[in-house]
């Protein structure tokens, strides 16, 4: 069997197009195409920019979730964490506004990043040091963060100080050469994430931990540290999303970010990242986030299906994506 001069090796095979890897992008193309067919308003520049901007929050958080899921973990707390970070950030900004004026926004954003990272670290340490299932830990922190934001808003709304609104507004509504800032921020997060995951030693170690944690451990990889770091990255992404989110509605409420964790996980999984870990697809995740938002948009624009069924369609998408995966025989 092995005698057949098999030592001749080539690197060609890696360049062959892998259809399974392209599936999320093909699906995105098909959905855009259907959108154009169904409603002429869909393809207008204003609508497309609007859709892409709206998908920014889920996309940014989902980049972090790609790290967590690639490492073999899961984070259910991202939606609540988003709300909690938003609340802390608004309180900080409001507190600092009288003394520092516009700089309070920058300082508040800095605090948001620190708080996000700490929330992620908290999740990561309980999971790795305490050796508890990520599902359970983040289910717990999901409840904790949600309760905190409800407490901070006293069940109502926590608005940002009037004096800051005008200065902060452009972060969501502004644009550079016609490209909205949230889209640019998303692009930056995605590029950074792709670099970290694909081109650095940390990314390689993360993938190895998700692929087989025992192999990683026996190869001298500090499995706990790598995993915990993935949750910190997730926390930072949540904070970035929060920074973009605040100027949109100008307030934090107990329902901010509710059920976002489901959309985030859906985006990651239909993007081609393996839920059991070991393979992360950053660009696929972005495609996943866009697919979810575009479906919602098309349903709102068209009168065929009630927009109250958006969640059902999105839920069906993840199941169909997984079935397609199974029956095309790809891993």
């Amino acid at each position, binding site marked *: *069997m092995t005698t057949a001069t*098999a030592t001749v090796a080539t690197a*060609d095979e890696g360049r062959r197009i892998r259809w399974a890897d392209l599936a999320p992008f093909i699906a995105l193309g098909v959905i855009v195409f259907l959108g154009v067919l169904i409603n002429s308003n869909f393809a207008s520049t204003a609508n497309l920019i609007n859709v892409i901007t709206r998908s920014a929050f889920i996309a940014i958080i989902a980049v972090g979730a790609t790290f967590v899921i690639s490492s073999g973990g899961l984070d259910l707390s991202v939606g609540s964490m988003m709300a909690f970070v938003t609340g802390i950030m608004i309180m900080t900004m409001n507190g600092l506004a009288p003394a520092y004026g516009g700089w309070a926004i920058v300082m508040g954003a800095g605090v948001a990043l620190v708080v996000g990272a700490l929330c992620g670290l908290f999740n990561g340490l309980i999971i790795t040091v305490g050796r508890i299932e990520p599902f359970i830990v983040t289910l717990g922190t999901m409840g904790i963060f949600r309760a905190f934001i409800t407490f901070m808003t006293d069940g109502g709304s926590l608005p940002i100080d009037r004096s800051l609104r005008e200065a902060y507004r452009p972060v969501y509504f502004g644009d550079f050469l016609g490209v909205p800032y949230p889209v640019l921020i998303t692009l930056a997060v995605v590029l950074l994430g792709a670099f970290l995951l694909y*081109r650095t030693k940390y990314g390689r*170690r993360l993938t*190895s931990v998700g*692929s*087989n944690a*025992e192999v990683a451990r026996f190869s*001298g990889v500090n499995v706990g540290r790598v995993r915990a770091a993935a949750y910190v990255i997730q926390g930072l992404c949540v904070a970035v999303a929060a920074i973009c989110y605040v100027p949109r509605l100008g307030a934090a409420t107990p329902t901010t970010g509710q059920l976002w964790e489901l959309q985030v996980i859906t985006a990651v999984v239909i993007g081609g990242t393996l839920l059991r870990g070991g393979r992360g697809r950053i660009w696929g995740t972005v495609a996943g986030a866009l697919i979810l938002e575009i479906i919602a948009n098309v349903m709102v624009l068209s009168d065929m299906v009630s927009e109250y069924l958006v969640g059902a369609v999105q839920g069906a998408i993840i199941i169909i994506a997984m079935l397609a995966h199974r029956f095309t025989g790809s891993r």
Partner: protein
Amino acid sequence: MPAFASLRADGLGKSYGQITVLSDVTLDIHAGEVHAIIGENGAGKSTLMKLLSGHASPTAGHIAMDGRAVSFANAVEAEKHGIVLVHQEILLAPDLTVAQNLFLGREIRRGFMVDDRAMDRRAAELLARIGSAARPRDRVSDLPLAQRQLVQIARALLDERKVVIFDEPTAVLANDEVAALLDIVRGLREHGVAVLYISHRLDEVQELADRVTVLRDGRMIGTWPAAELTQRQMAELMVGRELDMLYPHKRPATTHEPLLSVSGLEVDHGAQKASFDVRPGEVLGLGGMIGSGRTELIEGLMGLRPSQAASVVVNGSEIAHRSVGSMMEAGLVYLTEDRKGKGLLLDEKLAPNLTLQALEIVNPGTVLGRGAEMAALRKAVADYDIRVRSLTLEAGKLSGGNQQKLLLAKVMMTDPSVVIIDEPTRGIDIGNKSQIYEFIDAMVRSGRACIVISSEMQELVGLADRILVMRAGRIVAELLGEEINEENVVYAATSGTGQHTGGTA
């Protein structure tokens, strides 16, 4: 002897596409006979018994029972004909009780309800008959490995059988348990059951079998009455050449300072305790029965298990905090016995596998160097003769032997001075075996030191310049020079002097 064999294979063969894994096997098994099948790993033993037990369908030849041709679509059909295979791996539901496992899928019922009391009673009878200490209500996950094996055998024997096929049943058993198992097999023979017994352990085969069939490279070499063959002749028939040619020449004794010295190492809270050292230019063998704690001892040394040590010195420097990383930096690497579970990322490509342990060495900066990785892979493929169709394959697609060479290349990436190899040739064919022996020889002659853990006595004796024998977590003997032979290793491993017979490890 009856007119017809209980089970007869006639020109049996199996091909997967172009690849033939077994061809032209003709043998018969009579009622009241133990027929042993021996052969190296990869010789086709498992394929043969899969064909005979309905787990796979032959692509050539026929199977006959009591003179009538039969064919089995699956294992259930074979069981209906009275043929059962006792698997080597433990296939039991760990959270169920022993009795629940025994009757899984064929529960005794009373109306709509399962009759636990009746099942417990029958299970107790059966367990007593085969000499198992397990009780019907024990949970399987609470039982030691050997007891689980006996439960599995009990499950196979629950119904009356004409033919029982054992696949290396003693692989996980300690010595007294082996004796009990051999008694079970003899009991079956007296009951007129035809037994097909697959094993590596030639001493068992000689003790038990009436006839022996030898397989090599998917072909049948022949069938002999067991009494006519010595163990050495059996081994040479299996290997197909003189055994002495397989191993490199031993190296001259060295008096250099040790590269690794370990004193007062305690692993798993004292389950394993040992002190030892190894010198440059030396292959140190670590022998003992399965379950004697060799792997655990080394995993403890590497900081992979809870452990403490009075002192561990690698290359002249004391290691304070032991971990795979710190040991690697000091120049000590460990190659696991569990190639698929702990050694390689089977779903990942070759290059990431090769460089995982040496990421810092291959990529000095922050960014991964794709070019450097591919260069390292090309060099490893050439240096270790890893046979691959493409450099971008996943590691899981390589054959066992090539995986083992990749794993060896992986740990050697860090240029270690001491290499510990656990079961260097488990599950790989003879050609790759002799290559790996040559690699070990070359590495040691270049001034490195190597510790080899092996359950294959011949391998241990053939490779090592010095052997430490473990029993129940302790080193009980050191063999040097002329003392190194299989008898001494086995004697020390099974009847270690000055030690309690510390139960079944």
